[in-house]
């Protein structure tokens, strides 16, 4: 077996036997995905409830709009009492051709919506009953908007975050542990080139990242979460690989700087935690104030996240690769360069 293969195998075995790392690389992010995925699943989808007394075309038409959830009452007083208690924004009383809307003025926005809806439905029924063609033609057309269902931004967010954390920690820790345990010195005394050692470590990190990607997108695609990948998801591959390398090089820098595992853990946390919160991992960064959005642009995680979201779920094309790939590549070059300057084989 070649030195490259056997080093990669040794590191892979060490990793698979390390329960803590496995937990933080796979189960921990998966927990976030599941919890947030379920928590936000129905966000923004709450229908307005509307009480109804009596029956007829208007009630049926209201039900067909799909915009309201109609709750029927046998007694008018029961329904009106619910409106008065604030449990319902309104109640439609249909008595033959008479349509009366009882509404509570306390919730102006919902009351307005309910009034508009009921009067709209009633008017269109009136037009139809008159037998004349409507003068104004009205059609509603849905626009592909930039707001996404939570799972659509959660998946690329948690994926890039877990890859970032995994790569920074594993690269940094390997370097520090190997230096402290004199494995680095031992490797230096063996006829194996530093490039071989480094590339075998990269291979292991990339393999872990690919497994994370498969696991998280797989789970998010389950019907209960309902992730839908766009047709251009494969464009995520270059962003993904550059992202892994960018965080790997940050890990190398951490490992080059720190002499103990404790220091490396702290440094890795200092690097990854602010990035995780400010790069749109757990909530869309568009919701943040503008200065925070500007700050977040310095983080490679933000660009990886944006890039992955654009091609994985927004269906953007090749042009969406330009900025994230450029930024990540720049990060890789600059950070690796600094890491090689700071790096030392020995403690002293």
């Amino acid at each position, binding site marked *: *077996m*070649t*030195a490259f*293969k*056997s*080093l990669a*195998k*040794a*590191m892979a*075995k*060490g990793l698979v*036997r*390390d329960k803590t790392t496995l937990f933080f690389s796979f189960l921990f992010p998966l927990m976030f995905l599941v919890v947030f995925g379920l928590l936000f699943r129905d966000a923004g989808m709450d229908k307005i409830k509307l009480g109804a007394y009596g029956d007829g075309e208007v009630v049926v038409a209201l039900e067909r709009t799909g915009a309201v959830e109609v709750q029927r009452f046998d007694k008018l007083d029961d329904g009106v009492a619910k409106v008065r208690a604030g449990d319902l924004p309104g109640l439609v009383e249909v008595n033959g051709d008479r349509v009366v809307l009882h509404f509570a003025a306390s919730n102006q926005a919902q009351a307005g919506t309910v009034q508009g809806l009921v009067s709209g439905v009633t008017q269109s029924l009136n037009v139809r009953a008159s037998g004349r063609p409507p003068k104004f033609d009205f059609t509603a057309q849905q626009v592909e908007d930039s707001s996404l269902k939570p799972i659509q931004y959660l998946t690329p967010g948690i994926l890039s975050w877990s890859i970032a954390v995994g790569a920074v920690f594993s690269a940094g820790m390997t370097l520090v*542990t190997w230096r*402290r*345990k*004199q*494995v680095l*010195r*031992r*490797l*230096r*005394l*063996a*006829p*194996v*080139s530093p490039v071989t050692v480094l590339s075998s470590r990269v291979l292991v990190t990339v393999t872990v990242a690919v497994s994370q990607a498969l696991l998280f997108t797989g789970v998010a695609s389950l019907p209960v979460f309902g992730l839908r990948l766009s047709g251009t998801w494969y464009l995520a591959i270059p962003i993904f690989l550059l992202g892994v390398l960018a965080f790997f090089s940050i890990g190398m820098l951490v490992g080059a700087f720190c002499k103990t595992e404790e220091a490396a853990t702290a440094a890795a946390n200092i690097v990854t935690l602010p990035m995780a919160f400010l790069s749109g991992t757990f909530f869309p960064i568009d919701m943040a104030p503008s200065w925070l959005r500007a700050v977040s642009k310095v983080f490679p995680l933000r660009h990886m996240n944006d890039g992955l979201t654009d091609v994985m779920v927004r269906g953007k094309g090749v042009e969406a690769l330009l900025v994230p790939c450029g930024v990540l590549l720049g990060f890789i070059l600059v950070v690796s360069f600094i890491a090689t300057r700071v790096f030392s084989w020995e403690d002293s």
Partner: protein
Amino acid sequence: MTSTGAGAAAIVVDDIRKSYGDLKAVDGVSFTVGHGEFFGILGPNGAGKTTALEIMEGLREPDSGSVRLLGESPFPRKPALLPRIGVQLQASAFFDRLTAREQLETFSALYGVGAGRVDEMLELVGLTEKAGTREDKLSGGQRQRLSIACALAHDPDVVFLDEPTAALDPQARRNLWDVLRVIRERGKTIVYTTHYLDEAEILCDRVAIMDQGRVLAMDTPTALVRGLDAPTRITLERGTLTAADAAGLPGADEVGEDEQSLVLTTRTPAPLLAALAERGTLDGLQVRTATLEDVFLQLTGREYRA
């Protein structure tokens, strides 16, 4: 055993010096190690043993002086030279969470050697039973032996061992001595550091005693002790002989007495022991000749502390 001829020497160290700030870690050390020789560098902690070893291995560049390792300068790193040397480091340089066998397989692969010798190496260091045990679950002595096996996996000509017996219990140390003897029988050149003088006396063909960055003495352990011209001390149980009688025995130079014993000092032990045997006082008798510790005391004027 020693030869200064270039062809016969495995390692030639010529007046190497290395300072860290004001500290002269190695301060003008020279010696030659022949092929197949078991060479020990002894001295207390901080004597400069490890730095000297690191310079020989090519890990550090000396401030001045030179090293020829198998005819080449080991610094800067020479990948062609590395397969011919095997190194065991002070710390346990192992890969995380791998078994003894996996460590050996990985180290073999680093040298482009197949796993064919792995079983033999495990057998050599007595770890066949522990092949499937993870390195972090091994005892200190087992870990040291595995570390030596890893240094030998690619069948090097020269082996460097840095304090392989440090921090081991007496039994584990003796087990390791057996391993070291077997390696020597295989014709390897061994350079090893230790702070146990008794151990070096038993194992080494030649020793260099170092203190404060310098070599104080270098020879075979026997020659060093003989050169000391130290008297032999014979200890008897108190009461077997009176001090006055003892002083009259042939060869008895000095007589001392304490609560438990009577101590005779002599430079001619043979007639004295014969005379003691005639008197039937050999029961409980102890003979102590000088050791490397006495050599160290003589050289430095202070007690040896490991």
